[in-house]
C-alpha cells in the first residue's frame, strides 16, 4: 500500500512537471501567435514590408486625408520631421513625401524608424513602396538626410475611413544594431 502511493505520487508529479514546462513554452508561443493575430486583424497598425508598385484604378470619387507624424524615442539625439504634415489623396494614386532626419551627435549613429498606422484596421490598405523604415539608417556625425516615402492607398479601403495617420518613431539603435 505504501510504495503504491509513492509510485502514484511520482507518476502524478511527472505529469504535472510536464504541464509546467508546457505552460512555460506556451508563454513563448504567445509571441508568434500574437504576431499572426495582429496580421489577421491589423491590430496595432502593424504593416508588412515593402510592396511592388502595381497600378490601381484611381478612385476619384473620394479623398482620403493622410497625416504624417514624427516622434523620437526619449533618448534618441536627433532632429526628425516630416516635410508634409498632411495631404489629401485619391485612393489608387501614388504619392511621395519627404522626411528629414539629422544626427545631433558627433559620432556615427545607427537608428531605426518604427511606423505605426492608425486606425489599426486601415493599416493594411496603406501600401508603402519605398520607406526609410524598411531598414536601419546609418548617419555620420552631424549628418542630415532627406528621405522619401512613396505610398498608395488601396482603393478597397472601406468607405468609413476618411483619415489615416502614419506615425514614425526613431529609435537610437547604435548600441544594439545588427549592422555593427
Amino acid at each position, binding site marked *: 500500500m505504501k510504495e503504491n*502511493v509513492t509510485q502514484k*505520487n511520482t507518476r502524478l508529479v511527472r505529469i*504535472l512537471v510536464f504541464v509546467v514546462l508546457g*505552460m512555460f513554452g506556451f*508563454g513563448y508561443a504567445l509571441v508568434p501567435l500574437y504576431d499572426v493575430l495582429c496580421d489577421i486583424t491589423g*491590430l496595432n497598425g502593424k504593416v508588412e514590408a515593402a510592396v511592388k508598385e502595381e497600378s490601381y484604378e484611381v478612385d476619384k470619387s473620394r479623398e482620403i486625408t493622410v497625416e504624417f507624424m514624427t516622434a523620437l524615442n526619449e533618448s534618441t539625439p536627433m532632429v526628425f520631421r516630416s516635410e508634409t504634415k498632411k495631404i489629401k489623396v485619391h485612393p489608387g494614386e501614388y504619392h511621395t513625401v519627404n522626411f528629414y532626419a539629422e544626427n545631433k551627435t558627433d559620432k556615427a549613429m545607427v537608428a531605426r524608424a518604427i511606423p505605426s498606422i492608425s486606425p489599426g484596421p486601415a493599416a493594411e490598405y496603406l501600401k508603402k513602396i519605398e520607406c526609410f523604415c524598411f531598414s536601419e539608417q546609418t548617419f555620420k556625425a552631424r549628418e542630415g538626410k532627406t528621405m522619401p516615402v512613396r505610398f498608395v492607398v488601396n482603393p478597397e479601403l472601406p468607405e468609413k475611413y476618411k483619415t489615416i495617420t502614419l506615425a514614425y518613431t526613431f*529609435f537610437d539603435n547604435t548600441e*544594439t544594431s545588427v549592422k555593427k
Partner: protein
Amino acid sequence: MSAVVAEHEHDEHHDHGPQKGLLRWVITTNHKDIGTLYLVFSLAMFFIGGAMAMIIRAELFEPGMQFVDPQFFNSMTTMHALVMVFGAVMPAFVGLANWMIPMMIGAPDMALPRMNNMSFWMLVAGVLLLASTLFMEGGAPASGWTLYPPLVLQTGAALPFAIFSVHLLGISSIMGAINIIATIFNMRAPAMTLMKMPLFVWTWLITAFLLIAIMPVFAGAVTMLLTDRFFDTSFFDAAGGGDPVLYQHIFWFFGHPEVYVMILPTFGVASTIIPVFARKPLFGYSSMVYATASIAFLSFIVWAHHMFTVGMPVAGELYFMYATMLIAIPTGVKVFNWTATMWKGSMTFETPMLFSIAFVVLFTIGGFTGLMMSIAPSDFQYHDTYFIVAHFHYTLVPASVFILMAAGYYWLPKWTGNMYNERIGKLHFWLSAVSVNILFFPQHFLGLAGMPRRIPDYAVQFADWNMISSIGGFIFGISQLLFLYIVIDTIKGGTGEKATDEVWEDAHKHGLEWTLPSPPPYHTFTTPPATVPTEHI
C-alpha cells in the same frame, strides 16, 4: 519487496515528535510545522506590506509632496502589491492548506514532505531577494506590480534581482501546488470521496491547477523582460520589431487567473465556516464545486478586460466584455449559496462568523464594481483611476484578508489548544470592518472624479476624500496589531480556557479536523479514519 517496505517504515517513523531546538524549523518536513512557518511568515509580510501602505496613505493624506520623493512613492506602490500578493496572501493560503488539507482528508501528511520544506524556504529566499532591491542603486522597481515595459526596463540595478525573485516565488508556488494536487489525489482516506471533500479542499485543488498553469507563463514573461534588457532580444522593444502591448497580453494571461488564486481558497474557507455558525449544511454543495470550476475556467479567457484601452478591434472589446460579465454568474451562485446557508439558520456571531459575513457583503461590492468595469466603453473612464484601486481592494482586503482573519480565529483554538480572547477578537472585527470602508469606499468617488492611480501628488479637488481614506487606512493599520496580540496571546494560553476537541458546537459533523484533539498530536491520521463527516454537503 519487503526490503522496500522496511526502508519506508524507517524513513517515516524515525521521529515521533518534533525535533528539539531551532533546527526543527529549518529541516522540518511535518505538514503542521510547515503550515505554521508559512502562516507566521505571511503574517510578518502582512505587516511589512502594511507599513508600505501606511507610507502611501501618509503621502496622500494631503495634496503636495510631504514625506517621500515620487520615485520612492512608486516603489512603495509596487513593493506593497508584490509583498502583499506573493508574500502575504498567497503564502497564508498555502499555510492553511498545509495545516488543514491533510487533517481534512484524513491523510498522515502532505504527499511530498521534503519538497514542501523546499518550497517554503524558496519563498523566503524570493521575498528576501525582492526586499533587497529596496537598498539597491536606482531603488526598488517602481513600475507598478504589473511590471509593464518599457517603463520597467528603466529600473536601475534592481531589475535582474526583482526578476529572479519572481522566478523563485514562482517555483515555490508551483512546488506548493504540485504537492497539494498530489496530496488530494493520492492521500485521501478511502471514505473521503471527491464529492465529500470539504470545499476548502476543493477550492485549493482548483487553485493549484490554476497555479501550475499560470506561474510558468509569468516566469516566461519576466524572462523575456530580462533578455530584452540584457541580451538584446526585442520581445517588447519596438525598435527591434517587438511590441510592449504583447507583454500586457502575456502578463494578464497570468494576472487575471492570479487574482482568482487569491480568491478561490477564500471562497473555500467561507464555505467551511458559514455552515458551522449557521448550524446548517452548506446550501448547494455541488453547485459550489461547479461554480468554482467554471470561475477557474473562465479566468483563462477574459484577460484583456485589463487592456480595454490599448486599442483592440471592436470585436475583441465585445468578446472580452461579455466573457468577463459571464464570471458574475458563478460568482453570484456562490453569494446566493452563502446567503441561503444563513437563511433561517440558528446563527451565532463569534469572530470567525463576523468576518465571514462581512466578507459576503463587502466582496459583493467588489464584484459589482468589477461588473461596472467589464463594460468596455465605461472602463475608459475607470481605467487606471482610483476606481479600480477601490475595486480590487474590496475584492482583496475585506474578502481575502478578512477570510484569512476568520480562518485564524476559527482554527487557532484547534492549532494551539487554547481559546482566544473573544472580546478583543470582536473589537478587532468591528474596528477593521468600519475602517476598511472608510479607507476604500471614498476611493470610488476619487476614481470617478478622475484621480489617477500610482501618483504621489494630486489636484486639490481630491483632497477631502483622500484625507478621509488615509484616516481609515491608519485606523485599519493600527487595528491589525490587535490580531497580532491575539495570536501571540492565544499561543501563550489565551483566556486560560482550554479548547475542546470540536471547539465550535457540533463542528465535528462538519470536518475531520474537529474529531482530533486540540492541539492535534504531531502526527495525525497515521491510519485513515473509517468514516468522514458529511454535514457540510
